[in-house]
């Protein structure tokens, strides 16, 4: 089966006056149709850069992005136009992602107008339909973004992304700017429209509980490289990379009897300008060995893969 989206050795370096920032380094991933792939990692790890390359907001330094088997770098104009209408994004902050000077109806109609000739009546119908899908009244189209709460604005952003009936949606921290009681509404909505429209999701989040709840597959990114990837259930039940283990141990649970692991409280992420040699995680790793300091480990294993020299069982015993 062809993957909906495939990243092959995707790399992005930024040249700055201080040197080269290696934001994304040789990331390979497959996202199957109608699944949800989550990218998790700390701020600055490169997860948003990966999303930007998929959305063509950044050009990769090397490597390929394939959409249904076709490399987007070699697509002609027509194919690229078709690609762009099939890939949509929902961003973190619905206060900055919606133009405050446009009415909601115009905001939702904009992507449609960019791709199709539609009469005013046809546009109004599309807007009303997607507003209904996201649980908003049709008269919302006449109002401005500031007249809505954060949760409602995120619904509007989702409606805009849905208007062209895309196949792949990139969700960049879609609920982290929202209040706890509103988050569940939006997550449930996203799950519902995924089933209804057969969508494939790539979600970026730093919230591990959310990722475990929402995604089918997960890729853990550390300093631009994948440290672990696989089916969400397996990765969360038996994390194989010490970084994944540290991340999971660091999540405070809503349970007063849960003791936060002290082992998780180690060091800080290194700079992508001067990433450490060998395994990029080794300066923070409690299990680092000599080889980790010199030779980068390769992501191995399927479907659950980890880039670590320690055999999984040794790691389990050590923890």
């Amino acid at each position, binding site marked *: 089966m062809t993957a909906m989206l495939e990243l092959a050795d995707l790399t992005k370096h930024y040249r700055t006056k201080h040197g080269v920032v290696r934001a994304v380094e040789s990331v390979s991933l497959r996202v199957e149709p109608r699944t949800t792939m989550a990218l998790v990692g700390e701020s600055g790890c490169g997860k948003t850069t990966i999303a930007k390359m998929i959305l063509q907001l950044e050009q990769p330094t090397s490597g390929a992005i394939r959409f249904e088997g076709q490399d987007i770098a070699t697509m002609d104009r027509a194919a690229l136009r078709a690609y762009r209408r099939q890939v949509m994004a929902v961003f973190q902050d619905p206060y900055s992602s919606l133009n405050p000077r446009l009415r909601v109806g115009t905001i939702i109609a904009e992507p449609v107008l960019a791709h199709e000739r539609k009469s005013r009546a046809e546009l109004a119908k599309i807007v009303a339909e997607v507003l209904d899908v996201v649980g908003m009244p049709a008269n919302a189209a006449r109002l401005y973004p500031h007249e809505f709460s954060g949760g409602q604005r995120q619904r509007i952003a989702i409606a805009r992304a849905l208007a062209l009936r895309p196949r792949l949606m990139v969700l960049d921290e879609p609920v982290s700017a929202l209040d706890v009681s509103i988050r569940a509404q939006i997550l449930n909505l996203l799950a519902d429209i995924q089933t209804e429209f057969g969508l494939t999701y790539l979600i970026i989040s730093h919230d591990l509980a959310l990722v475990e709840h929402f995604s089918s597959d997960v890729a853990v990114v550390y300093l631009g490289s994948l440290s672990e990837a696989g089916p969400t259930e397996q990765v969360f039940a038996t994390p194989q990379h010490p970084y994944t283990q540290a991340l*999971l141990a660091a999540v405070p*649970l*809503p349970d007063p009897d849960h003791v*936060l692991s002290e082992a998780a409280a180690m060091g800080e992420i290194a700079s992508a300008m001067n990433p450490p040699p060998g395994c990029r995680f080794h300066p923070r790793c409690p299990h680092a060995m000599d080889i980790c300091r010199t030779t980068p480990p390769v992501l191995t294993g399927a479907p659950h893969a980890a880039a670590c020299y320690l055999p999984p069982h040794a790691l389990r015993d050590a923890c």
Partner: protein
Amino acid sequence: MLLSVRDLQTHLHLKRGVLRAVDGISFDVAEGETLGLVGESGSGKTLTGLSLLRLLPKGSGRIVGGSIKLDGQELTTLSESALARDIRGRKIAMIMQDPMTSLNPVFSIGDQVGSPLRNHDIARGAALRSAVVDVLQRVRLPSPADRLGDYPHQFSGGQRQRIVAAMAIGCTPRLLVADEPTTALDVTIQVQIINLLRTIQADTGAGIILITHDLGVAASLCRRIAVMYAGQIIETGPVRAIYRTPSHPYTKALLAAIPRLGAKRTRLVAIAGQPPSLIDPPSGCRFAARCTQRMDKCAEAPPTVTLSDGHSAACWKLV
């Protein structure tokens, strides 16, 4: 009792009308105790913290009723100059959410950490310098003596939050108000700051008010929790009572709305609707419009019912 707040009312006088941001709340904090003020944005938790220090928005914010007693001393009637001299930064100090905006980018960190000590005449000259180094050591900033002349942008997010904490604890305050101290940080750094707050408390015996929307962070740090909704405390109790036997429908709904790490994957129970406007709040229970157990009686303000030692909630269902 270290801090006793009774029937505190703080209003914001806006163009649109008077916003009853904090509407008659009462709570105590004992020495060495951590109280969690938990709620969503707009619930009044931050304005409660700012009321204690009388740092309300100039012109619009005003404490209009109630009492705040620190070690028996009434603060609401204290003059601004006496408050600035004896209380603010001296006996009550605050750690703000975003270390990037609570540090001044054009002053060195040595200067900023030293300023409360200078202002309160605690140390000068060489003694000031060694006091600053000492307090930076206590928050575990690496090699503080060499970094006094460095500026905020030269530190990582976690280090900046340590510097902000150092500013707050320099004068050994009796009460620390920590407003979302870990929200801007990654999980692995969050654990470090949670541990730091614990250490500070163990060392100084200060009372801590932790303001947060994160039920996980609250569970890991607090001894008691007060849940705020629409300007009021709707449930308060020992941390175990709140998480094990939540009694107010809002607390229950909030706990059901968050995905939990390691829990079986089920559909999240969303809370429908959104909080009421506090310019013209409903006269009865403020959660009633969103409550699944609403009764006719809820049109009247619910009484606060004591459920067990120190655990109480304001709901007609419990009468």
